[in-house]
């Protein structure tokens, strides 16, 4: 069984760190992070053409991560595949020993680096969860029986700061009904918003990983210019503190802020675990983990 699942079910506060699959075939840098952190974190997360920017296949990267001694959490996006490809990639992932999945709709193609590509979205994230659940039950989406059903630990995204929230909550319930076993949020900077969101969680316990992110200089500049348009908000005083600083200083301050957030989330039990985003850099991850006492 997946370590991520065991840790979550044991209530032992798993830590997932997000890697950046390379734009190219050189995987050494990505795997160096795995080698350095394999003993300290629960799993390594592999985004699938994140922000619609083409990168090395997440499933392949995930397999390499496992070979390098880490556990992988593979993202799979509906944007780039029709249902045949989604299903065969899911089976392919299972055959490579990949169990943890994060099933997402995917950022739209025009926002990425191949804006003229054809967007697929044959399924949406809810339907993809149903498809994966069906595979686990031994049949594909056409109802045909499989030889050897895969075992998955199914993750989905939920947006605590969605505005308006009710449509997002409906989708959240659908994802639960479709078979999601854990949820990951986008980056959270304002814990009050997370606390308020937790009031909407259903009675039955839902495993929630909250993302904690180290902002880059470009993002800080964007926010300082009033151009911030993301599904998570940045507290104005954080932006004021970071604006205009040197890129490495911004990262260093971001690491401190991130470790504080992680500590608080853990202490207050605001989540069952954390999902760290820090440019895929070992040094930043290590500092966060150390400062947060993990």
């Amino acid at each position, binding site marked *: 069984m997946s370590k991520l699942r065991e840790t979550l079910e044991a209530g032992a506060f798993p830590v997932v760190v997000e890697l950046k699959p390379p734009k190219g075939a050189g995987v050494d840098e990505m795997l160096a992070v795995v080698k350095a952190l394999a003993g300290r974190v629960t799993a390594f997360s592999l985004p699938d053409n994140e922000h619609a920017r083409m990168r090395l296949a997440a499933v392949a990267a995930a397999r390499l991560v496992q070979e390098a001694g880490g556990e992988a959490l593979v993202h799979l996006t509906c944007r780039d595949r029709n249902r045949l490809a989604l299903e065969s990639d899911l089976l392919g992932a299972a055959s490579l020993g990949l169990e943890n999945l994060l099933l997402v709709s995917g950022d739209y193609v025009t926002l990425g680096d191949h804006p003229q590509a054809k967007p697929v979205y*044959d399924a*949406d*994230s809810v339907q993809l969860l149903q498809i994966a659940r069906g595979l686990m039950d031994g049949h594909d989406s056409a109802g045909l029986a499989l030889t050897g059903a895969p075992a998955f630990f199914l993750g989905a995204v939920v947006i605590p700061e969605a*505005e308006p929230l*009710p*449509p997002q909550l*409906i*989708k959240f319930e*659908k994802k639960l009904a479709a078979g999601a076993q854990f949820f990951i949020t986008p980056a959270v900077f304002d814990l009050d918003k997370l606390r308020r969101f937790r009031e909407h969680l259903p009675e039955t316990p839902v495993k929630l990983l909250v993302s904690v992110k180290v902002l880059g200089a470009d993002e800080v500049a964007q926010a300082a210019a009033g151009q911030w348009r993301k599904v998570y908000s940045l507290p104005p005083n954080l932006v004021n503190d970071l604006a205009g600083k040197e890129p490495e200083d911004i990262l260093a301050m971001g690491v401190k802020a991130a470790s504080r957030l992680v500590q608080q989330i853990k202490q207050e039990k605001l989540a069952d675990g954390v999902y760290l985003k820090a440019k895929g850099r070992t040094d930043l991850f290590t500092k966060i983990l150390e400062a947060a006492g993990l």
Partner: protein
Amino acid sequence: MIIAERKPFAEIKAMLAPYKKILIVGCGTCVAVCLAGGEKEVGLLASQLKLALGVEDKHLEIGEITVERQCDLEFLRPLCDFTADYEAIVSMACGAGVQFLNQLCSLHPVFPAVNTTFIGVNNEVGYYTEACRACHNCYLGITGGICPVTMCPKGLLNGPCGGMVNGRCEVDPEKECAWCRIYHRLELEGRLDNLREILPLHPHDRTTTPGTVIHPAYKRRYGLNE
């Protein structure tokens, strides 16, 4: 109706470069309403071509005619006698009209003068927005009369994606998130329960092109007795 945009003039001019005598055929229905290929636009294109070639001291003889609907054989057939004198035909109809005209006038090359863009609505004069993707499986009864297939760029059937910010679309912040609109409309109508059920995967087999529809009353005529 079908919305179209006129092709850039340079593209049309280049297509017609080899010919000395052409017929421009407008269409009096959708493309006339969206000011892309009706009688008026036929006149404008003809005049523009005459001027442009005149500037280069060349001559092009241009015939102008507009039929009510180029996608309808009844209106198109009388045109056939008329085309014989010309070397090439320019259709200002949507892609359907161009192809139908092309099928009928088999001896002439037929060129499109517009790019067909979408099925949409006429918000105000000159301002058109897409409203239907002709998906063969209408969800509007469930989704409060707002189409998730068309109005959501991702065509998501089960709620908003994670990119919605303040009720705005991830892809175009100028636009309201289709799923927010659907939610608010159903809330207003007291029909939010419509959204509880997960909509299944879309039956894309029905959208295999080219589609054919035979009205049930005409099945016998077209040899489709069951």
